[in-house]
């Protein structure tokens, strides 16, 4: 049996399982659409930085989202802003999961003194409020995307590390791990071949959760002016909207499209996580099915319904 094909089949089986869930599938499609728009559309529309129209003009046939305080096309800004925001958001997501898996997995698997120290580290970062720390770091450091990435990862890694650690600890105590140890397998092999494949759902939802956090926090920092305000991102769009007194001038179109985009992306990601949850916990689904089949008046808490559903 070819080992590579076999390993891939675990991954592909899992992936197909997740995608057959309605919620996960819908969420993934939305994200895919946004990603494609972010990557390709900017080539086809006019530059977001050109000062074209009259500042603060409402949506019209010429500029479908209107113009902002500098006379720039809001539609172009919204589309082009997606690139950096999504790129940094998902990159931070991946980094957070990698660091979380390394630290949390090590702590959970090896236990003992190692766990005591790493857990302390995880808990300290977990309990410290993120925003003030991010603000300080971002203020001192130069406003580059790298800074942003670093700051996001530093404040976001601990949550996932903790979750991964407890899953790892659960698996560590299972007999199949002891059996592998007794056969002489090395620890690394056990972690990668026996345990990790069973944590695919957890890793995936960690990645998604971390990305949601990263996108939101990034936008928050840029809104404060701590990003590079000369670049076009969703966060800086909102920064400029606020700076140009969007509220006072009642120019809602300068901040609503960007905000909605952020909300839709975050929501789609949340939807994917809902889907992953359902797949990992089949009880949720079977209960829903049960509820759908039983006539309403027979559903009473604590009393098994008597109902021949074949009739």
């Amino acid at each position, binding site marked *: 049996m070819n080992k590579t094909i076999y390993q891939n089949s675990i991954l592909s089986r899992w992936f197909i399982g997740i995608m057959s869930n309605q919620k996960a599938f819908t969420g993934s499609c939305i994200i895919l659409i946004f990603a494609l728009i972010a990557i390709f559309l900017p080539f086809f529309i006019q530059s977001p930085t050109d000062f074209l129209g009259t500042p603060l003009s409402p949506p019209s046939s010429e500029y479908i989202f209107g113009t902002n305080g500098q006379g720039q096309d809001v539609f172009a800004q919204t589309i082009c802003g997606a690139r950096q925001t999504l790129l940094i958001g998902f990159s931070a997501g991946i980094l957070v999961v990698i660091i979380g898996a390394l630290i949390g997995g090590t702590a959970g698997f090896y236990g003992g003194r190692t766990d005591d120290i790493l857990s*302390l580290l995880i*808990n*300290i970062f*977990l*309990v*410290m*409020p*993120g*925003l*003030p*720390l991010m*603000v*300080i*770091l971002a*203020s*001192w*450091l130069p406003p580059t995307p790298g800074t942003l990435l670093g700051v996001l990862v530093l404040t976001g890694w601990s*949550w996932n590390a903790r979750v991964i650690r407890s899953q790892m600890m659960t698996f560590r105590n299972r007999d199949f791990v002891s059996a592998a140890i007794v056969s002489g397998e090395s620890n690394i092999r056990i972690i990668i071949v026996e345990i990790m494949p069973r944590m695919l759902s957890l890793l995936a939802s960690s990645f998604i959760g971390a990305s*949601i956090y990263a996108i*939101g926090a990034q*936008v*928050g920092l840029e*809104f*404060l*002016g*701590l990003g590079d305000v000369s670049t076009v991102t969703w966060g800086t769009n*909102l920064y400029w909207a*606020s700076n140009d007194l*969007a*509220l*006072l001038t*009642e120019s*809602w179109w300068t*901040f*609503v499209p*960007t*905000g909605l985009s*952020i*909300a839709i992306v*975050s*929501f789609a*990601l*949340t*939807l994917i996580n*809902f889907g992953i949850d359902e797949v990992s916990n089949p*009880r*949720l689904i079977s*209960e829903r099915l049960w*509820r759908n089949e039983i006539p*309403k008046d027979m*559903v009473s*808490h*604590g*009393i098994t319904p008597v109902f021949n559903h074949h009739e």
Partner: protein
Amino acid sequence: MNKSLIYIARRLSFYLIAAFAALTLNFIIPRLMPGDPASIIFARFKGKLNPEAINAMRQSFGLTNDPILIQYWSYLKGIFRGDLGTSIAYFPEPVSEIIGSGLLWTIFLAGLSLVIAFSIGTTLGIFIAWNRTGKLDTFLPPTLAFFGALPYFWLAMVFLYVFGFSMNWFPIGRAFGNQVSPGLNFAFLFSVLYHAILPAFTLIFVSIGGWMLSMRNTMISTLGADYITFANAKGIPSKLIMLRYAARNAILPNLTGFGMALGFVLSGALLTEMIFSYPGQGFLLLQAVQSQDFPLMQGIFMTITFAVLGANWLVDIAILFFDPRTRK
């Protein structure tokens, strides 16, 4: 009883370590940056302040030429005395005084919103998980999840725009009106509440989904437990089972998570304050960033961190009352 005291002491020692780590982080960060922090400040304020003022700033900022460890020691001593340095934007006012004025407003706004969001969210979660009858359970979780995905400050802008600027139903900023004088009088209290409505509503709107969803999840897993089936068999009335058997167990993991979520929710509160010009820590933070007032920024970081750590400790103590397994 002994076990409870040990538990409280253990948690306290953890928070002290975390506080210490935060303090040290706070100390190290400016000194890790490329270049001498003093000259960075100097460069930024070149021409705006005379050399004596800059020197005084350096002194109060702790940026002397002493070796690092001495600087660290005097920094720590200062913190314990309550000395958080001198503000740059409001020079020469001490940071601790500036922060002091805003702390209560943040605690008021964030605290009020947190209590309301947690109570309503948790209660909703209990009912939704209990009934699981179609409509409410299929439509509420995704809706509230969508609201939870909105950035706090963006939603704040939307509400401010719609209810403040457009419809003029609510004030557009500040904690209380100009005409009222602070004090324990009815007009003042009313004004405070009136001004708090929009910002609190923003916070509640975004955060309620999270509380509801996690309570719903823990309720669902609790409802699958054997002791629920046993309670049913005993003929205990439904309402009692829902509350005393299911909810009381389901809420425990949420309480543990409450402490951790605290820091997160607080961040949202800070951003919301900025939009509403609510005179709390958030607003101060915004001003500090805009004027690059590092001592103020760091002072706010310390204060918020200590507040969150303290609140976490209080939640841990509260758990003692809810979970007999921690007691002995």
